[in-house]
């Protein structure tokens, strides 16, 4: 029952995972064929006014500035030092813009879509699944069928369908972007009202699929728990149905909490594509553009943020799991 020991063990494991993730995060973009400076130089020389000598000078200057003339190990150490001081570097593609600024502009949009989608989707999905299990009959059949259909649908498919139905055909919502042209992002009522109309479609495309997946899982678990000996015993003792429902819900939640940890990774990945479909200016769009331009610093920054977000979410879920289920806490903390 030693919760402190359980949390300490989990912290160590997640730190190891973080170090491994940072290493891979550095290495993977460099395994992609091509040199980012080639892209920058070729963009510069498109007009034909730059001579080959000037191209060479620009090339050497960029290579030196970005440290690409150093060994891979030296580049890694430089990268590590900068990461731990919060400096994500300078963008290759948007030179001389800092990666911190680029990510700082994109991240709020992604968080605004994904965080509510995860929380609302998880809560609603579990409640709908539990109600379907308890009520049974036609309610259960219709909820199960529709949830199964939605959970099997990829995020981008629903995004395209919603975009076509509600934006292109019905014209209820704007087709793409995050706010109307001519506006500048600010904390004013008029801007937020305008942004909300752009927000609904990306949000719905994520949350609806997530609700489906969670409802299917919760329904199965609740049906299984309904037949448990502890339910029959509680009933035999005259305990009220709402209290028994709490017992069932708590036990059925355990696999759902694990499911949440796994789903967060999928949802973050799905959200990146959703942003592209809706031209939403979040980290998905930023990452897509960075990959196209071999913009290592931006790619590394975005994947690092996603990795840290997934690790933190999973860590939080593991802690909650340990609090909810005393058996897990006992087993993981080595309690005898």
């Amino acid at each position: 029952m030693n919760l402190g020991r359980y949390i300490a063990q989990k912290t160590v494991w997640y730190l190891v995972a973080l170090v491994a993730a940072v290493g891979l995060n550095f290495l993977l973009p460099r395994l992609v064929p091509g040199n980012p400076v080639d892209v920058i130089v070729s963009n510069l020389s498109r007009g034909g006014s730059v001579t080959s000598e000037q191209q060479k000078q620009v090339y050497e200057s960029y290579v030196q500035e970005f440290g690409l003339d150093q060994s891979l190990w030296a580049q890694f150490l430089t990268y590590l030092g900068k990461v731990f001081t919060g400096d994500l570097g300078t963008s290759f593609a948007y030179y001389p813009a800092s990666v911190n600024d680029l990510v700082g502009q994109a991240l709020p949009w992604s968080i605004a879509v994904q965080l509510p989608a995860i929380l609302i989707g998880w809560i609603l999905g579990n409640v709908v699944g539990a109600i379907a299990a308890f009520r049974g009959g036609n309610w259960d059949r219709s909820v199960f069928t529709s949830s199964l259909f939605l959970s099997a649908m990829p995020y981008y498919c629903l995004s395209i369908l919603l975009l076509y139905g509600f934006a292109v055909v019905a014209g209820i919502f704007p087709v793409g972007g995050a706010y109307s042209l001519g506006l500048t992002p600010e904390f004013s009522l008029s801007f937020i009202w305008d942004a909300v109309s752009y927000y609904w479609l990306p949000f719905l495309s994520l949350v609806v699929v997530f609700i489906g997946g969670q409802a299917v899982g919760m329904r199965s678990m609740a049906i299984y728990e309904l037949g448990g000996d502890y339910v029959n015993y509680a009933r035999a003792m005259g305990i009220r149905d709402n209290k028994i429902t709490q017992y069932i819900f708590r036990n059925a939640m355990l696999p759902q909490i694990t499911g949440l940890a796994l789903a967060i990774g999928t949802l973050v990945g799905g959200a990146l594509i959703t942003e592209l479909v809706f031209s939403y200016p979040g980290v998905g769009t930023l990452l897509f553009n960075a990959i196209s331009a071999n913009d290592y610093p931006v790619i590394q920054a975005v994947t690092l943020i996603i990795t840290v977000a997934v690790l933190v979410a999973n860590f939080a879920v593991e802690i909650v799991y340990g609090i909810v289920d005393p058996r897990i806490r006992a087993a993981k903390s080595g309690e005898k």
Partner: protein
Amino acid sequence: MSTTNTPSGTASSPSRSGILARAENIRCVYGGGEEDFTAVDGVSIELGEGEILGLAGESGCGKTTLGNALAMIATPPLYVLSGTLEIDGETIDLSTLQPSDLKRHRPYRGRTVSMLPQGAMNSISPTLRISSLVRDVMRAHDPKITKDEALDLARERLKMLDMPVRVLDSYAHQLSGGMKQRMITVISTLQNPRLLIADEPTSALDVSSQRMLVEMLLEMVQQGIMSGVVFVTHDLPVLSQVSDKLAIMNAGSIVESGPTRQLVENAQHPYTRKLLSSVLDPSQETRRRGVARRSTTTEEVGTP
């Protein structure tokens, strides 16, 4: 307790004390459709104050189903088509045909009739402390009782039964099988039920734990914690030690009943005699007979 056999399988016999409970014409089916399986077919029983009625029979004869009907916890696919339980001057209709019937019976469960279940090992939610279950059981019948008051009662009961009070702070996985079973017994009797249905409470326990549980139940009856017990089991040796009266069930009906000693020593019904003769005798004589039989069989078949 009184016994008379009727065509529908009723059992009654002269009571040595006042009548505690009388259940009549209990009929249970599994299914609810056209191809129902009748599990209990018009059974009636009577139980005197302070008596333990042993309900025996082979697996699948309807013992547990009858216990569930008496405890009013029948849920689909089990339906109680008919039956009444007369206890404390009140007649309770046991039939459960609609989900609302289960709700109608809730005030009686745990207090008038309580259950010591067959699957007591898993009867506590794994994420629930014993103390929380105690509180919920007490609040089910007395919503105003505080947690401390409920736990004080449980502590008092545990001390009375020489059990450690600290088990209240435990989760189910932290208790041994025997301790879990005894704890469930304590919880089942917290409300001082008039009638306890003990459904195979010793079947998953080793012999020493079985003995402790049986002694605990006997002590509880003697102390008046509950007024009567229906002890359901296929373990005839245990029943012959515990019960005042035996009822033998076969294919959903009670085929014979009577005082335990009388029935064990002078069974009338062929099924009862067969059931009693099926009990393994652990003596060396039995072992020798078994070896001799096997040897004979080998001789008949021939050795390779």
